[in-house]
């Protein structure tokens, strides 16, 4: 496609911005920490030093979770928007998050356990995300109109949400609290030792998305046109759902459902890169997504002496007006 240099330049700028924000965020918390302590806490960890301990146990995992969540959710959103050819599609809107929530709710709050341990929770979330995705996919075979499909996703999300409420009403109060914490969205749920697993899964998802850049570009022309350009549309659809389930499932499992990121960021990336080529949009979305959540975390840290806003509140506060603006521009 056309001149790639400017796209790489933009991505580089975003990357630099992300690095700066990450470093700043690492110094924020209940007390200020120097950059030297940040460095030591991550690379030359000395347990007895309390600043380093804070960085190692609390800050670094928190900020890296923000980065991983940003990447995972925005890439999922981009894939969903291309698959459904709708700028309002996103893992949250289409009920993929809700599917994950429902399974997590079932496994934490009812006698329907899949696996009791932490791995069980992640697994439940991924199965839930995948199940929801499959449901949407199967619906897409019966529904011609892409807008109808979007509505089905929204309805599914509402239904799953209502089921979760029912489960909550009958849950043991102990388990209920676990679930409720989760539903506010938190970046503090991943420990240092688990960062490798989560980061690894997110990178696998990103890498898999890179592998289907060409089909993604061709899907823009519509299913028939893509098919006639050699794409196995059915297989690619399934692949997209799998990747989305993986990315959304992992993040939803550890951080709770985070709204709006998957919806807003891909649109934002398209706006600033001004290309339809997923080669650049993927990286652009991933970087912009990470920047958004890290920025939200910075805001939460700075506000915390005065106001304790849960993560979901911030993403909604920023996301909803942006979504409204997108709709007004496009429709």
């Amino acid at each position, binding site marked *: 496609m056309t001149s790639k240099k400017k796209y790489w330049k933009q991505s580089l700028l975003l990357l630099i911005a992300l690095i700066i924000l990450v470093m700043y965020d690492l110094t924020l*918390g*209940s*007390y200020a920490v120097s950059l030297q302590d940040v460095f030591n806490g991550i690379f030359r960890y000395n347990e007895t030093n*309390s600043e380093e*301990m*804070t960085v190692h*146990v*609390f*800050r670094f995992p*928190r900020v890296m979770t923000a980065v991983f969540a940003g990447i995972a959710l925005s890439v999922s959103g981009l894939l969903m928007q291309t698959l459904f050819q709708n700028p309002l599609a996103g893992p949250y809107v289409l009920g993929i998050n809700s599917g994950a929530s429902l399974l997590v709710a079932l496994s934490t709050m009812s006698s329907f356990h899949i696996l009791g341990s*932490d791995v069980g929770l992640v697994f439940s979330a991924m199965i839930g995300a995948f199940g929801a995705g499959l449901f949407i996919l199967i619906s897409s075979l019966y529904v011609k109109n892409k807008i109808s499909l979007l509505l089905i996703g929204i309805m599914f999300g509402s239904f799953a949400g209502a089921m979760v409420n029912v489960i909550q009403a009958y849950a043991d*109060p*102990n388990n209920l*609290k*676990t679930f*409720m*914490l989760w539903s*506010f*969205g*938190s970046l*503090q*749920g991943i*420990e240092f030792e688990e960062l490798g697993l989560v980061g690894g899964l997110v990178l696998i998802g990103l890498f898999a998305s890179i592998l289907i850049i060409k089909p993604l570009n061709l899907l823009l022309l519509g299913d028939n046109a893509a098919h006639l350009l050699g794409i196995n549309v059915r297989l690619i659809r399934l692949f997209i759902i799998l990747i989305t389930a993986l990315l959304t499932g992992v993040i939803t499992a550890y951080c709770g459902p985070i709204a709006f990121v998957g919806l807003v960021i891909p649109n934002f990336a398209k706006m600033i890169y001004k290309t339809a080529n997923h080669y650049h949009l993927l990286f652009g979305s991933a970087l912009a997504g990470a920047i958004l959540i890290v920025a939200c975390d910075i805001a939460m840290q700075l506000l*915390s002496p005065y106001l*304790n806003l*849960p*993560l979901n509140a911030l993403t909604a506060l920023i996301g909803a007006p942006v979504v409204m603006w997108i709709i007004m521009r496009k429709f």
Partner: protein
Amino acid sequence: MKLNLIFFLPFFFLALVSCEEKRNATPSHVESIVYDTLKNEYAKGFQLIYSSEGTIVNVLDPLTGELIKNYSIGKGEAYNVFSDSLHNVVALSTTHIGMLRKLGLESRISGVASYQHLCHPMNITKVHEVGDIGMTDPERILKASPDIIFYSGYNLNAPILNKLERVDKKTFLIYDWKETHPLGRAEWLKVFGVLFGKEKEAHHIFTEMKTNYHRIVTNLKEAKHQPTVLAGTYFGDVFNVPAGDSYMAHLLKDANVNYVYSEMEGVGSLNLGLEEVITKNLEVDYWINVAFNSFKDLIEQSAKFSMLKSVKTGQVYTYINDVNCFWENSPVEPDKVLEDFGKIFHPELMEESELIYYSRLANQ
């Protein structure tokens, strides 16, 4: 126009004069009644004013002293008159049930908010489940044919209160939960005593409990060592801890321990960040009032809790295993809670070791 004015003027004058007369008439009537306000020992949320006409109960905001509600109980022609015998009682908060039980009036309860929160199961044919005050369905309350409805006033303007008043149902605000002194909260038993004609019993029970409470306080003062204590739950990515002037903080102070947030101002709870609470309380001896009953569940909520000494040494206690009875009875039995604290924090000073409301977290 002018004609109309002249026509109305005499009537206007007449009205003024008659008002004047009435005003001149009242002073002599008022002077004849003697009001005697009972001085509370600890409670700031109510005032009992005795007179020959009956008793006036004023419900105040304990923090500001502002008068919220007033009720007249007795023979006079005042608006809020309660019948002599209150047979059917709807108690919308479980603390009311605890107080009624203390006065042996449990059998009069005809309606509770929810069966789920009861300490002891009640006869469901006799006792109706009427829902929370937030539910705008007065019919469920009417099914219990209440002579009086006790409510807590978390929302003083709940629309259902108006509806109930319109069908002439008597509501009564119990503001005990706003008291920050443990004995002040228990003292509300006296209000129930006045309502049900059991002032003497209420006074007696309160005094006994108060004496026991002070006995324990004095005993615990003997402790050579004040352990450090953290209290609170992690919920919605926010750590909720009782502030320094709150009910729980008072209890802890009376238990002769070092509550880590005793210096932080406030009568309610504080919202703190996870990082702050953990990094500042790594070496704290005890952690109470968690939301789980096992260490496994606690750590599942956040693995970071295992960094705390209190978790490592297994010194985490909660009332969650007895949560309904705790909420129902502890307000009127703060001495029992204090006793539990004594057994937890200064076991060497206590005769028995079996806890009443609290329990240590299970290992599984």
